[in-house]
Structure formats: structure tokens, C-alpha cells
């Protein structure tokens, strides 16, 4: 039995995983990363538009700060997020952007003087301050009050991933590539590492560690069409689920991005609309102002995706052999802008559609894009059930996104959560011993080995490819943008039948080394379980919140549903997960539930909301008018961070007002 020992084991070499690995290594811990693929090919690279951080350098970002970013994030989540976590995040985002500049990211910078931009379909000239020249720029994104999305052209994820992986290489952090973690080693209370299979040789290895951090990204590929890379199959979530004790949070919270190209589902960035692009229908009509006169194309993602679907249901879509779509028009931005700031979009249009987006409209429709749900962790990134098991990034439900994530907040989460949780993981590594229980290791490896034997030598009859297609079809048809009880019930029944069938899988290719069919078979039965947590969670949640839109329950129901869904799978033979709920405490919220600003306000209020609002008013009044925003925030909802991350963030405005102060004195 091959056993490899380390202090800090990280599964997944995207931005979140690498950032945690760097934090561990910085503290002198032995650190090792497992990845399905070379680190630089991780799905983080596909994030185009940018990451949100309230630097406030550009004139359109002036006045921005942690408070505004926090409020946008909470509203965007439809009050489903953990507000303490959203605070930790908003506070550290500017630090992460600046750290990445130190590591080599060539952030797009502000140029002083006049600059022409497109706002609401009109060319507008804005004037950037002389003092801002050369500082990090930001563009507009949906659901934000300020221009806050820092970017490098439209290859932000690529630049970030390369800089962070280069940093990891410079520190000598090993990445074991083409290693697939499939099982968590645990004793019901403590996680000891994982069992992984080498995708080249087929060798099974045990990786034993003090801490194990799952950073395997989202589960978008349980859907047939998704913007996600084909490796985003939810195996990290499935591993946690299969421990029988760890929980997954809010799995039904699945985001559909408004503008993926038709039919292949490749993303065109929200930066297209942030920079001034428009959505048009079959008649060429710009329809978003009809639905959302205030925010228009830059309403929150869930809202835009629903409005697009509604509009297509009215027959206003453009017919195609692949079903109806709408148009994304960025021609008004001009060729120069497209060829510098939106060149990945231009390449995608050229290669996959054969069109020139400076001249032609782009066929788009809402497509599965992001998993708000994931492995439930506390604010330090650790599983509440399994000590030593951490999760970070899209894989996790740290829960800064609640039921809808803002554009630019996922790339931000990877590096910000990686920075924060990385420190907690390192603390854990310093304060805990390596526990080696060979009996547990043998048991876990034996289970995986038996599973593989049965797939190769067993008497099963089911094809992994067919089961996967059927699962993906069910998710597309019944667990999409709009949901309803009867369809969700169909989904649950269909998936349960598939799970039963998945116990009867067989592979035709009998090789025990590199065998893509075996890989598929090992994954598909895990994916079906993940799909069941999504469908069961959605069927049980009889309200609409953020991206979870129930046609039969259109109201956001704070009274009964201001709670987080938790799924676990204690009985390995069961056909569905157990569901529990965790209340969100309104009395602890800095920003009590309110109107999000889209459509009619049909919320059923929580009884504590009015009480908490009154309490906040009293607290603020007690502090007096002269209390600064930091004091006010602390009074309402104190939050903790590792000490090194507590300092305030300096901004251009602070520097400018200090200079003015000096002149006046």
C-alpha cells in the first residue's frame, strides 16, 4: 500500500487550492497539492471579466469601500449568505488584489484624463484623476453600486492563475498531476486525508495529512449544458457526502449565467454588458429596460437570466436548430475596445460561431454557470462535522454568496478565501499532530479497490455514459432556471432510479491503468448523488430566493425559509440524502432582510426583521453622529479575521484627503 505523508494536503490546483497551499508553505508546513490536470489548466483560468475589490481608484468607483461591497454582496445573495463571512471577504478583497500585483498580475491600470465609455447605450466621457494614474482600474459589473471589478483585459482568471501557480512553483510546492481523489479517510470525527487514483498508471495511493482542503470547484457538469470546464463534476462534494457525516450546504442554489453562446454553452463575460453591451430580442429590440428600468442589463445575474427566459417564453426569442436564443450586442463598444478589452470573447466568437462581434450580434442564452452550494464549512473554512477537513472556493459553501453570486465575486472568493482560510489551515497544521491509523487507511483503500474490481470484473450491465446523459438531461429539464413541485418530484424520482442503476455499472474497457471509461464510471455514481442533493433541496424549498425560482412559490419567504439547506448521506444504501436546516439569525445581521430592488417586493417578512431594524437604529443613535463607519460596523456585527489581515485598507481618497488636510493646516 503506497502511503504519502504531508502536513497540508490540498485537493484541487485552481486559485483557491493553490492559495491555501501557499499559505501553508509560508508557515513552513510540508504541503502537497493533488490535481486532475496541470495546475494552470484549472477552471479558474476561464474567469474572464475580473474580481471585485473596493479599491475605488477609478472615478466611477469613488466612494466605494468595504461597506458598499458588503451590502451589494448580501443583497445579491438575496439575504441567503452568512453576513460575517461576507464581511471577512469584503475586508480582505483589496488586500488580495494588491498581493496579486506583488506576485506579478498585470492589472489593467487607470489612465489619467478623459476616457470615452459606453453607459446605457450612450457614449459618455469620464475624467480620471491625475492622482489615480497607474493605479488598478475597475469595470462595471451587474448588481454593484460602484465600478468595482478589477481586471486584466478579459483574461483575469488566466493572469491570476498563472501568477499564483508561478508563486507556488517558486516556493517548491509539489503538484501531483493527474491524480484523482475519490475517497476521504476519516473516523467519523476527524479527517485524515484521501485515497486517490493515478489517472495514468491506475495506482491507488493514500495521502495522509494533518489537514485536507477540498478545492475542487463546482458541480456544473451535472447539467448537460454548462459554461463549466468538463472536469467540474462535483467529485469533491461527493467525497464529502460519502463520508456520511460532512454536510453540503444550499446545493439547490445553482446560478445560470445570462450570456453563454448557443449551442455549445461557452461563456461570454459579464464584462460585455459591464462595458456597455446590450441584450436584444428577435426584433432587435432592447428588452431589459422594459423589465428592469433601473438596472437594465446590469441587474443581478439571476434576475437577467429569468427575464431573458420570460421574454423567450413570450415568443420573442430567435429560433435556431438548438432552440430559441437572444442576442448580445457589443458592436456599439467599437472594434478597438473589443480587440483590447474583450479579446477572449472575440476569439470565442471567431472560432466557435464564425462571427465578428465588432460587426455581428452574438447568439446567447442563460446557461448553468456557478454552484453557490458546496461543502458546508464554518467561517474558518473547516467542516463543522469533520475536524481537519477544510474546503475553499466554489467547492465550498463558506457562504458568502447565499442564493445568488455577484459577477466578479467568484474569482475574488478564490483568492480572498484562499488567503483567509489558508491562514486557518496553517494554524490547524501548527496545532495538530499527524494521526496515522493504518486500519482506517486500509479500509478506505479496500473500499475503493473493491469498487474498481466490481466495475471491471463484475456482472453489471449499465453504461456509465448513458447514465450520465440521463442524469444531465433530468437536471436540464426539471431543475433549471424556473422550477416547480411536479417537475422537481420527477427529477428526484428519475435520479433515484439512476442511482439504483448506477450500482449495476460495468465498463467495457478492462484496463486498470489509463482508462477513461473507468474514470467516467467512478465519477457518475458520485455525480448522481450530488445531483440528488440539488434536486431534493430544490423540491423541499417552497419559496423563491435568488437563483432558486419556484413558479409555484414565487415569494421570498423569510418567515419560513431564512435558513440554509444542509444535506448529508449517512446511510450509504439510501437513495436520497437526509436534509436538515440551519437558521440564519436575523438578530445577528448587520443588514436585516429587505427589498432587493428588482420587480415587485413580494417578500414574506421574518418576524425578527422589524425588531432588528429598530435595534440597529438605537445602536447607531447611541454612537452619535461622529462615529466613523468602522465603529458603527463593529457595534452592529463584529467579525474576526486572522490578525495579519485586520488592518484597514488605504484608498486613494484617504491619501487625497490627507493631502488636503496638510494644505489646510
Amino acid at each position, binding site marked *: 500500500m503506497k502511503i504519502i505523508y504531508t502536513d497540508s494536503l490540498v485537493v484541487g490546483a485552481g486559485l483557491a487550492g493553490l492559495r491555501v497551499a501557499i499559505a501553508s508553505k509560508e508557515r513552513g508546513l510540508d504541503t502537497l497539492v493533488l490535481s486532475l*490536470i*496541470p*495546475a*494552470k*489548466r*484549472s*477552471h479558474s*483560468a*476561464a474567469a474572464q471579466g475580473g474580481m471585485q475589490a473596493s479599491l475605488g481608484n477609478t472615478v466611477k468607483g469613488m466612494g466605494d469601500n468595504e461597506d458598499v461591497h458588503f451590502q451589494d454582496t448580501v443583497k445579491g445573495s438575496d439575504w441567503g449568505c452568512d453576513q460575517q463571512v461576507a464581511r471577512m471577504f469584503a475586508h480582505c478583497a483589496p488586500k488580495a*488584489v*494588491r*498581493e496579486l*500585483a*506583488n*506576485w*506579478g498580475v*498585470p492589472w*489593467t*491600470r487607470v*489612465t489619467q484624463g478623459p476616457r470615452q465609455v459606453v453607459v446605457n447605450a450612450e457614449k459618455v466621457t469620464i475624467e480620471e484623476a491625475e492622482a489615480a*494614474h*497607474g*493605479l*488598478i482600474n475597475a469595470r462595471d459589473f451587474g448588481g454593484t453600486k460602484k465600478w468595482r471589478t478589477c481586471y*486584466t*483585459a478579459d*483574461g483575469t482568471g*488566466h493572469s491570476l492563475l*498563472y501568477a499564483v501557480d*508561478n*508563486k507556488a*512553483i*517558486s516556493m517548491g510546492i509539489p*503538484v501531483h*498531476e*493527474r491524480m484523482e481523489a475519490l475517497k476521504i479517510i476519516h473516523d467519523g470525527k476527524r479527517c485524515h486525508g484521501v485515497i486517490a487514483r493515478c489517472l*495514468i498508471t491506475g495506482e491507488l495511493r493514500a495521502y495522509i495529512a494533518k489537514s485536507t482542503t477540498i478545492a475542487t470547484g463546482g458541480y456544473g457538469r451535472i447539467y448537460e449544458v454548462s459554461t463549466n*470546464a*468538463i472536469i467540474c463534476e462535483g467529485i469533491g462534494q461527493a467525497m464529502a457526502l460519502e463520508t456520511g457525516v460532512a454536510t453540503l450546504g444550499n446545493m439547490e442554489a445553482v446560478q445560470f449565467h445570462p450570456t453563454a453562446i448557443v449551442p*455549445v454553452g461557452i*461563456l461570454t463575460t459579464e464584462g460585455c454588458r459591464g462595458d456597455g453591451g446590450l441584450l436584444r430580442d428577435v426584433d432587435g429590440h432592447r428588452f431589459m429596460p422594459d423589465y428592469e428600468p433601473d438596472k437594465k442589463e446590469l441587474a443581478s445575474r439571476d434576475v437577467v437570466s429569468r427575464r431573458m427566459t420570460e421574454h423567450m417564453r413570450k415568443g420573442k426569442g430567435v429560433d435556431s*436548430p438548438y432552440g430559441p436564443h437572444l442576442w448580445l450586442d457589443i458592436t456599439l463598444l467599437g472594434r478597438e475596445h473589443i480587440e*483590447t478589452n474583450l479579446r477572449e470573447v472575440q476569439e*470565442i466568437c471567431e*472560432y*466557435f460561431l*464564425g462571427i465578428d462581434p465588432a460587426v455581428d450580434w452574438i447568439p446567447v442564452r442563460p446557461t448553468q454557470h456557478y454552484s453557490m452550494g458546496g461543502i458546508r464549512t464554518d467561517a474558518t473554512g473547516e467542516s463543522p462535522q469533520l475536524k481537519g477537513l477544510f474546503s475553499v472556493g466554489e467547492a465550498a459553501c463558506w457562504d458568502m454568496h447565499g442564493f445568488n453570486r455577484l459577477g466578479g465575486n467568484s474569482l475574488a472568493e478564490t483568492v480572498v478565501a484562499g488567503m483567509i482560510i489558508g491562514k486557518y489551515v496553517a494554524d490547524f497544521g501548527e496545532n495538530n499532530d499527524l494521526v496515522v491509523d493504518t486500519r482506517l487507511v486500509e479500509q478506505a483503500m479496500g473500499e475503493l479497490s473493491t469498487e474498481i474490481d466490481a466495475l471491471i470484473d463484475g456482472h453489471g450491465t449499465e453504461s456509465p*455514459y448513458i447514465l450520465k446523459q440521463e442524469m444531465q438531461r433530468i437536471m436540464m429539464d426539471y431543475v433549471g432556471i424556473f422550477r416547480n413541485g411536479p417537475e422537481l418530484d420527477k427529477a428526484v424520482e428519475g435520479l433515484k432510479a439512476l442511482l439504483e442503476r448506477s450500482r449495476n455499472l460495468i*465498463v*467495457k*474497457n478492462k*484496463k486498470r*491503468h*489509463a482508462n*477513461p*471509461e473507468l474514470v467516467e464510471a467512478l465519477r457518475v455514481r458520485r455525480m448522481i448523488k450530488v445531483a440528488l442533493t440539488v434536486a431534493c433541496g430544490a423540491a423541499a424549498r417552497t419559496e423563491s430566493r435568488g437563483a432558486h425560482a419556484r413558479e409555484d412559490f414565487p415569494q421570498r419567504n423569510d418567515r419560513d425559509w431564512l435558513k440554509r439547506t444542509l444535506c448529508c448521506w449517512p446511510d450509504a444504501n439510501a437513495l436520497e440524502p437526509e436534509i436538515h436546516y440551519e437558521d440564519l439569525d436575523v438578530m445577528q445581521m448587520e443588514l436585516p432582510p429587505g427589498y432587493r430592488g428588482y420587480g415587485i417586493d413580494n417578500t414574506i417578512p421574518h418576524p425578527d426583521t422589524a425588531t432588528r431594524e429598530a435595534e440597529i437604529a438605537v445602536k447607531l443613535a447611541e454612537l452619535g453622529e461622529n462615529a466613523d463607519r468602522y465603529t458603527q460596523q463593529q457595534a452592529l456585527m463584529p467579525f474576526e479575521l486572522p490578525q495579519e489581515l485586520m488592518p*484597514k485598507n*488605504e*484608498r486613494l481618497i484617504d*491619501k487625497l484627503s490627507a493631502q488636503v488636510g496638510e494644505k489646510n493646516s
Partner: protein
Amino acid sequence: MSQGRTLTFNIFRFDPQQPGDKPKMVSYQLDETPGMTVFIALNRLREEQDSSLQFDFVCRAGICGSCAMVINGMPTLACRTLTSKFSDATITLMPLPGFELIGDLSVNTGKFMREIAERLKLWLHPRGDGQDIHVLEAPMDPEEAARLYELERCVECGVCVSACATKQMRETFVGAVGLMKIARFELDSRDARSVDDFYHVIGNQDGVFGCMTLLGCQDNCPKDLPHMQQIAYLRRKMSATLVSC
């Protein structure tokens, strides 16, 4: 478009881990569908005809660089190659040369790229201890940032390496990918290394002076990176260090 065609795929097959297996070409037939890419075709072949077929895709959107292979004689990204591009309905697929073969069309570009990065120290070497992350960042010339991004668009797909005659003859040659990255850090005002430092890693036959200027890299780079210009630039820079010595 060429709807209704039957495509013939001639695919290189070899499993180096299978005792007795020998490299061979195998033909497969597939009905073409509108908008079909080599990504779609290979997945269908694997699901419907031969489940042992090995190849690599990740983003399937031309972003991650996983899927480079030789398609009808030219190295390129398979995910964004439309089958309709080939008028004679025959498509020959070979693995990228110059890399360790994992099996069939799958090669170990990741291992190669990590080794090059370690050997050439392809990361930012900041001046001093770097800037405090709690205070205003150091300004950078906006033009410089834009130029850096242009050079940083490399996706490490390995096409330039496989298209390089020098690399095929000289195992230790760093290839256009290595030189492009050096050029990127050389341009970065935040990097503390001097031209002399770079000379020590690429001022030799394995670096800029090994290039025969056949420019297969420039011709085939899926990201249209200016390899020719950057290699010429680095050569002049490196030569200048010799003159000044």
C-alpha cells in the same frame, strides 16, 4: 455547411503501458453534425465506438491549452477546430511531438511546462520585499500593464514546442514558450532581475541563440503571440550584454 457528411478519423493509437502494444493508425467513421468540433467528435467516438480512446480536454473553449494535437499535419487546439474546415472529410489526428506520450492523443505537457518554469525561474522576482498589501498599490504605467498582458496570454498548450525544428533536434532547447515568458518578465518593471541575470539562463544554444528562426512557433501559436518579435528582441538584448562586458 457540410451537413450530412460521413467523416473519417484516422487516429494514432498507442498505449505505452500495455505490454506488446505497438503504435498504429486506426480509422473511425462518424456522421458530421452542424457546428461539430474535434472535441465533440472525439467524445462521441469514445462514447459510441471505442471507450479506450485517450485524449485531454478541460475547458473546451480554447482557454486552458489542454487539447493541442496535430490535426491534418498542423499542431493546434482541438476543442476549437471545426470539422467543417476540412473539405475532404478525412481528419488525421496525431499526438503532439516533443512531449512524453501518455497514450493515444494524450501527452504530458504539464510535466514539461513545470520543468521549464523551474529551470528558467519563470516567476516574478520582486524588488525588495514587495509592497504592503494594506496600503495603496504602487502605480504602474497603464501601457506597460497592457503590454505585459499581451505577452502573458500564452496557455502553455505546447504547440510552439511541437512546431519547432530546433526543439526536435535539441532536447534541452527552451522553446518559444520559455523565451516568451522570459520576455514577459524582462519587460516587467516590478521584476528585479537584470539583463545579465536573464543572459545566464537563455544566452546560449538552449536559449535565444539556438533558435533557427524557422518560426513554426509564430505560424501556429493559437494565441497569435509575437514570438518572432520577442525572440529577436531578446537576442538583441543578450548580444548587448556581451558588447558591454
